[in-house]
């Protein structure tokens, strides 16, 4: 998340919560007006969509691959630096 765009990020929060409220209303309407498999599918997909929105927008799951990559390269580069230093010492 950017550290500079305070108002932009706060605005994003309102948009996300509005989407979540709309989906919750859809869920409630699906429970009242739909029946059988269509109702189950409607509830499943709206719930899935809500979970994805929270995971992506609020929990920043998209940054996870970047974190793993940074960790990996941090470890690899540290070992490479140590090996270089050892080689220099041997020379």
């Amino acid at each position, binding site marked *: 998340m950017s550290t500079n765009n305070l108002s932009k990020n706060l605005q994003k929060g309102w948009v996300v919560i509005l989407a979540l409220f709309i989906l919750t209303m859809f869920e409630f309407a699906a429970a009242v007006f739909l029946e059988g498999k269509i109702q189950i599918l409607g509830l499943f997909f709206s*719930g899935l969509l809500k979970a994805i929105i929270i995971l992506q927008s609020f*929990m920043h799951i998209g940054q996870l691959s970047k974190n793993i990559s940074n*960790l990996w390269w941090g470890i690899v580069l540290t070992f490479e630096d140590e090996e270089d230093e050892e080689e220099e010492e041997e020379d």
Partner: protein
Amino acid sequence: MTTEIKNNLRDFELNLNRLGLWLFIVSDISFFVALVSSRFFIYGTSTPSEINQILGLSLTVLLLISSLTAYRAEVASMNQNKKMVLKNLLITMIIGMIFLVGVAFEWNVALHHEVTWPSKPFGTVLFTLTGVHAFHVLTGILALLIVFYLTAVDKIDSNNSWPVEGVVKWWHLVDVAWVAIYPTLYLLS
């Protein structure tokens, strides 16, 4: 130690913290998946009419609002706005406590109908799912309280937004779990 090495170490530690928390979150989500799936084995896809729909919807709306305030606390923390962090953490905790009162009320209502007694199939599902979730909410409130206190007394470095980020991620997990629990317990018919 040079500033560059210090910054690299801090980034490394932050990435490590995030990965660790995500591993914990994934393990916790798998626990909720098991509990939610047990509902279908025990009681199928029907829901007793005694379930209070208005209360279920109110609890959902409360948690969604608390997610917004938690997110605002995280954004404020990244922008080093202490006052806004404290305000939003406090609101999140208060909403969390109202949620717990709502769950207690739900349990009280459930105990007055035979079909939702803890000894009956649907009651077992209801009390287990809401109980485990309420415990998560309680731990979330305690974690928020600790971070609130540490922020208030300046024990957390203003450049370090990880404590707020971590506790807010935990709070969002509670929200994601409820997203699955709400239709499973209240809406299926």
